[in-house]
């Protein structure tokens, strides 16, 4: 009797602590179908090549944008893989990248790029810098829409998880702690990476490394949630995360690189249906390898179609982008002659396989 009461009490406490609304049980366990529709090998030679991809997106004109921290540039490749130039160079100047470039997003003629603690918007395709922000450590750029830049920003006192910086400089805090968060500062700081999909009417969808749910609602909350069943990916690994003790670094070390990393959350043509890509990473000392998995999430119907294994090489880790119903995957490997090559593959996201209709 005591145990049952205590458990009920814990569930109630968890519910209050999360602030993210009830975490509903999964409805669907169907795996999404990825149909390969195109493959483009990028034009590379010893002077123009993708060294270490550190960000990837598709511009509004269809060009592929690839952040390359090895070379300190953002490469611009045409849809057919022709190298159309690059933006920036390594350095500390306004049109230079000091540590990156890293995460890149594009909207119309504006490019938004993270560069260590700096965040920049650039005119595309000229590369002229429009704006630069200094961001505190641990504040990663995660999404961009309508001139609003979204940053991961964990505030343990307010129990908020992100900041939105508008084009006019206005800052709004949002997000809510998941069930796993709030107990340990180590967990909140090290295992709370997140992906955000800004939606219409100031709504967002958000996915956390420490949760197997996708949350959605107005930027200021409250949030509803959809469970994304862990079929093949590692998932949040709450067994490891809940064992983390502040002041015992070994517990955090055991969990390092174990939970699936929230790689991308993006609408697939309609705001109601989202593509959620996670990646199971392994740090190999001199590079990160990782197998991505794609799930489709229907936030209106509260259902998810989880864990299609994204095909292709996983060493080094691939990069992904979603435009409408197409998943683009950037892979780096070696051709038959042993020469390094970069390839972008396109896959159609067949949603009818998940819920019967497109």
């Amino acid at each position, binding site marked *: 009797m005591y145990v049952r009461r205590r458990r009920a009490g814990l569930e109630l406490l968890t519910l209050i602590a999360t602030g993210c609304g009830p975490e509903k049980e999964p409805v669907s366990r169907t795996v999404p179908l990825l149909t390969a529709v195109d493959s483009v090998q990028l034009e590379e030679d*010893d002077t123009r090549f993708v*060294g270490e991809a550190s960000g990837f997106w598709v511009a509004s004109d269809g060009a592929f944008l690839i952040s390359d921290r090895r070379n*300190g540039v953002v490469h611009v490749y045409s849809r057919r893989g022709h190298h159309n130039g690059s933006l920036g160079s*390594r350095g500390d100047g306004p049109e230079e990248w000091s*540590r990156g470039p890293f995460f890149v997003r594009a909207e119309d003629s504006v490019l938004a790029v993270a560069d260590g603690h700096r965040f920049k918007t650039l005119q595309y395709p000229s590369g002229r810098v429009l704006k630069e922000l200094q961001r505190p450590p641990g504040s990663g750029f995660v999404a961009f829409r309508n001139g609003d830049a979204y940053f991961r920003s964990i505030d343990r006192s307010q129990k908020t998880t992100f900041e939105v910086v508008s084009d006019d400089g206005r800052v709004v805090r949002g997000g809510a702690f998941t069930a796993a968060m709030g107990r340990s500062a180590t967990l909140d700081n090290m295992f709370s990476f997140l992906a955000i999909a800004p939606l219409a009417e100031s709504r967002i969808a958000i996915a956390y490394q420490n949760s197997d749910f996708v949350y959605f609602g107005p930027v200021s909350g409250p949030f509803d949630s959809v469970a994304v069943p862990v079929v093949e990916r590692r998932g949040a690994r709450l067994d490891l995360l809940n064992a983390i003790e502040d002041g015992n670094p070994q517990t955090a070390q055991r969990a390092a690189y174990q939970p699936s990393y929230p790689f991308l959350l993006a609408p697939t043509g309609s705001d109601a249906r989202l593509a959620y890509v996670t990646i199971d990473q392994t740090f190999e000392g*001199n*590079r990160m390898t990782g197998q991505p998995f794609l799930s489709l999430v229907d936030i209106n119907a509260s259902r998810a179609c989880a864990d299609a294994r994204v095909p292709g090489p996983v*060493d*080094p880790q691939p990069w992904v982008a979603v435009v409408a119903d197409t998943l683009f995957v950037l892979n780096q490997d070696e051709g038959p002659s042993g020469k390094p090559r970069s390839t972008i593959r396109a896959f159609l996201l067949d949603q009818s396989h998940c819920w019967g209709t497109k």
Partner: protein
Amino acid sequence: MSGGSYFTTVAWLIRILAVATISFGCAGAEPASLLDVRLGDGSALSETVKADTTTIVLVYEPGMCFSCSPMFTRWEAAAQRHGARLLLVLADEPSVEAARALRRLRIPVAGIAASWPKRLVPAEYVFRNGELVDKAEGLIDMQRRKLWEKEWLRS
């Protein structure tokens, strides 16, 4: 002999053994000259650094993350700015994966210095006209000395 003193004595013996092992281990690793390292084209490093330019020799572990650490790229930028020659010598044979990562990053490997003492790695050496003019050995020394920022780089 009481239990306490027994364990104290054993602990001291273990310490002495450990110190002896470390000392002998180090004594056996007396390095050959770095200049004896054979480069990929068969020539000795000593021949290459004789050229009338500044030559920077980096001795790094092959498993190092070359793209996530600024160590290599800042030297690459400095060498380019000052017209210096940059040679990467690996402190060991790279694994298949490490070699593939280096090819992907288009980082040419000048040679392997497998006999170079590991305690000196990573290391950075600057030669001018065949003479060693500056060096930094180990991460702390490298960070303290910041050789890549020095004026002598100007050829």
